[in-house]
């Protein structure tokens, strides 16, 4: 039975941003609950404004609601005030479209974008009156499934989910639905059959064993249908992008129309998980983007269109695309934005095109301060190029530049950190010369967190003390009018590092911390790290074991049974090359770097050309 609006009337006036919880947004799809056989809740484990900025959820919403016998409704994590109010009033977590409690859905699908919102998954299940552990649920409970970046190391969340999808969801979601139509009411049968599909991981069908030193010995199937290694799913060609997307009332974090212009990245930055796990590169045809933009803007009324991808400047024909979009939508005062710019003159020219006279600011990511360290991480840009681009930017009218850096990178020394400050000062003095007192430079320093399936997956997270020292040095060196420095809290980095490379035992820590009150751990105003240290201690586990330990190359990693298509041999080779300071060129600029994608998903040259893969295809199976 749906949650009665009158009972909400007594709590909504007392919570922050109550429109987060009322739905009714433009383009939201409200189907007849009683007449629609299969009911899916799409859940995002963060607040509404963050969740509404997520493109993946909108793609699935579109695909599911286009099925006649399926309804898909959205649900986000209530902020702590709303959770409290709901518990006090006995109101279960409900969907925005028809306000049905989560436990009344057939399938609850979570997208898992970030380690620090894992406790929110538990809040949502619990408030939705669904038992937290898969083993506590029976056929009367919804099927709880998950997808997204978090499933590339599914272990810390494994016991909470019936099924996890590794990779891209557009096709597998329809296969899982078809299976649900066939045997959905019988969970055992459903899960054993689903485990045979490519990209599906059913945690309950695997057993984890540990060695005496606490490392994972093996993650192995306990059922004949479960595959020893689950390989991610990909789509050959990007499916059409959704155009009738929900327009939020409450301002979303990214409150704009978004088109994914390509998926995957070939630059090969060694610290970047997205760059490794979303391969291969697939480009959406220019004509399709133009048509999609027309429909999307007409259906939403958005005043800004963002062209997103991991490296939009690498889109072949990007200049032509931006020009066409400006011609078509500029007259109706629609602005175009490109969130990821390279530090070169081409990107500047592009930014000049879409920012026009309104030069709001430019953001670049040199990532490291010295040429040496940039070679280690394979961020191929020289000191001279950075200065040259900065000079050209200030000289052509931008007052405000923002630079992103990482600290704690493998092999980093104090000299490398000083090099950040030197670079910042040089850029700023260029800015001063060109723009006088109007020049501004903001510097954002994040902690490097080693992620699974990257060449740095064996590297330790740097100790908090030495990170503090580096922060301190930067704070001392980077100061003055017009200069701004931001950094993040090393404590949250420890948590993020532990969970990104954790094993199945960490699920107990998550559960324990959640019971101690952990909520919204990605939000500094809600995070209480002490709860986490207590939870680790009570489970007899040490966060440092997961976060700060250098792992031997031969150690079984908790995610070794998950394959991204990029081979472990390639990651090992890249790791060695990084320590030698050897760079690996973007495969589109030269030859295939044999990352393994083509062996995992073999395609001939013609098929790749048709699907617009970025692979140069000099490899086996590529004609």
């Amino acid at each position: 039975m749906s949650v009665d609006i009158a009972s909400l009337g007594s709590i909504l006036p007392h919570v922050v941003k109550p429109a987060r919880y009322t739905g009714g947004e433009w383009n939201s799809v409200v189907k007849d609950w009683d007449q629609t056989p299969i009911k899916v809740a799409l859940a995002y484990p963060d607040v509404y404004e963050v969740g509404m900025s997520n493109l993946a959820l909108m793609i699935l919403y579109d695909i599911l609601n286009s099925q006649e016998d399926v309804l898909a409704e959205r649900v986000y994590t209530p902020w702590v005030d709303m959770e409290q109010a709901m518990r006090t009033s006995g109101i279960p977590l409900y969907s925005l479209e028809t306000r049905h409690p989560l436990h009344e859905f057939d399938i609850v699908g979570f997208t898992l974008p970030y380690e620090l919102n894992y406790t929110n998954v538990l809040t949502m299940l619990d408030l939705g009156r669904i038992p937290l552990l898969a083993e506590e649920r029976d056929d009367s409970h919804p099927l709880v499934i998950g997808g997204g970046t978090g499933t590339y190391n599914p272990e810390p969340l494994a016991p909470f989910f019936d099924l996890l999808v590794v990779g891209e969801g557009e096709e597998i979601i329809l296969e899982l639905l078809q299976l649900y139509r066939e045997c959905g009411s019988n969970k055992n049968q459903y899960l054993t059959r689903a485990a045979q599909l490519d990209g599906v991981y059913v945690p309950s069908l695997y057993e984890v064993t540990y060695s005496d030193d606490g490392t994972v010995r093996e993650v192995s199937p306990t059922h004949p249908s479960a595959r020893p290694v689950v390989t991610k799913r990909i789509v050959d060609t990007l499916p059409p992008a959704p155009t009738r997307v929900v327009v939020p009332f409450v301002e979303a974090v990214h409150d704009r129309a978004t088109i994914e212009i390509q998926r995957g990245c070939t630059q090969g930055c060694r610290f970047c998980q997205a760059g490794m796990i979303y391969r291969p590169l697939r480009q959406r045809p220019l004509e399709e983007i133009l048509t999609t933009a027309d429909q999307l803007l007409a259906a939403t009324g958005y005043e800004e269109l963002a062209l997103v991808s991991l490296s939009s400047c690498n889109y072949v024909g990007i200049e032509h695309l931006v020009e066409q979009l400006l011609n078509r939508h500029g007259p109706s005062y629609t602005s175009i934005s490109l969130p990821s710019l390279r530090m070169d003159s081409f990107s500047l020219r592009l930014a000049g095109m879409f920012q026009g006279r309104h030069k709001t600011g430019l953001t670049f990511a040199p990532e490291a301060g010295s040429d040496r360290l940039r070679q280690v991480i394979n961020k191929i840009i020289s000191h001279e190029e950075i200065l040259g681009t900065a000079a050209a930017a200030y000289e052509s009218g931008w007052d405000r530049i923002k630079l992103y850096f990482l600290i704690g990178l493998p092999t980093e020394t104090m000299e490398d950190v000083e090099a950040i400050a030197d670079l910042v000062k040089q850029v700023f003095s260029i800015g001063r010369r060109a723009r006088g007192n109007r020049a501004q430079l903001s510097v954002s320093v994040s902690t490097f967190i080693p992620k699974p399936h990257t060449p740095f997956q064996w590297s330790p997270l740097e100790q908090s003390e030495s990170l503090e020292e580096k922060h301190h040095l930067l704070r001392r060196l980077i100061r003055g009018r017009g200069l701004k420095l931001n950094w993040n809290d090393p404590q949250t980095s420890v948590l993020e590092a532990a969970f990104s490379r954790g094993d199945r035992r960490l699920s107990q820590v998550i559960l324990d911390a959640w019971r101690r009150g952990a909520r919204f751990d990605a939000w500094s105003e809600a995070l209480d790290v002490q709860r986490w240290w207590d939870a680790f201690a009570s489970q007899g586990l040490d966060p440092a074991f997961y976060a700060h330990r250098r792992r031997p190359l031969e150690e079984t990693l908790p995610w070794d049974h998950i394959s991204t298509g990029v081979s472990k041999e390639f990651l090992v080779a890249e790791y060695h090359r990084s320590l030698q300071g050897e760079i690996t060129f973007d495969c589109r600029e030269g030859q295939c770097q044999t990352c393994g994608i083509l062996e995992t998903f073999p395609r001939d040259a013609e098929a790749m050309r048709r699907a617009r893969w970025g692979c140069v295809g000099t490899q086996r199976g590529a004609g």
Partner: protein
Amino acid sequence: MRPGTEQTQRLRVTFAKEEEVKYISHLDLMRLWERALRRAEVPLLHSQGYNPRPKISFASPLAVGITGQREMMDVMLERPLAPLDFASAVNRQLPVGVTLVEVQEVYATLPALQTQVQGAEYLATVAVGEDARQLEERITSLLGSDQLPRQRRGKEYDLRPLLEQVWLETQEVGHYVLGIRLRAGDQGTGRPDEVLDELGLADQVKSITRTRLYFSPAGEE
């Protein structure tokens, strides 16, 4: 307004903000309107400068949780459009809970709508907690007081000069409906929930609606 463009037009739009959208804030409502008008492809006039914004101005923000029956805004267009054509294009683009009530063309040279607002009338539905006579006595005593010192966001202020009238509109089974007339504008804007709080009814309020805005003589209403 763009120099040399005599063709611009100002439309005064009266709309209702109903139950379904009463929890969205004023800023959210502004965005909602801008996007609905863009979807309707009406020729919005934009401000000049580096960051052109559509020229839409609202008479008076409505507090979160309160519905409005006759909310008003002025929309500037870069070329004339018949009010009826505007209404039919826009109507199709409005989410449930936002309804057009009236669209009329007004002189583009009139002063800004928000400068003309003098006050507003509200109706509050309150659960019955006492008999009508007691309530009326409390209303009389409230209106008889010289000042009503209150705090809003930590600042001291006097509600009394903002309060023009309170009356018992109807008395029905299970609830009363109270009428409240409050000043709005440069000298401050009175809030109906604060009046209800002064009457000791804060916990009994079931709903509040703003029935109309009233304007200085130069205005339209």
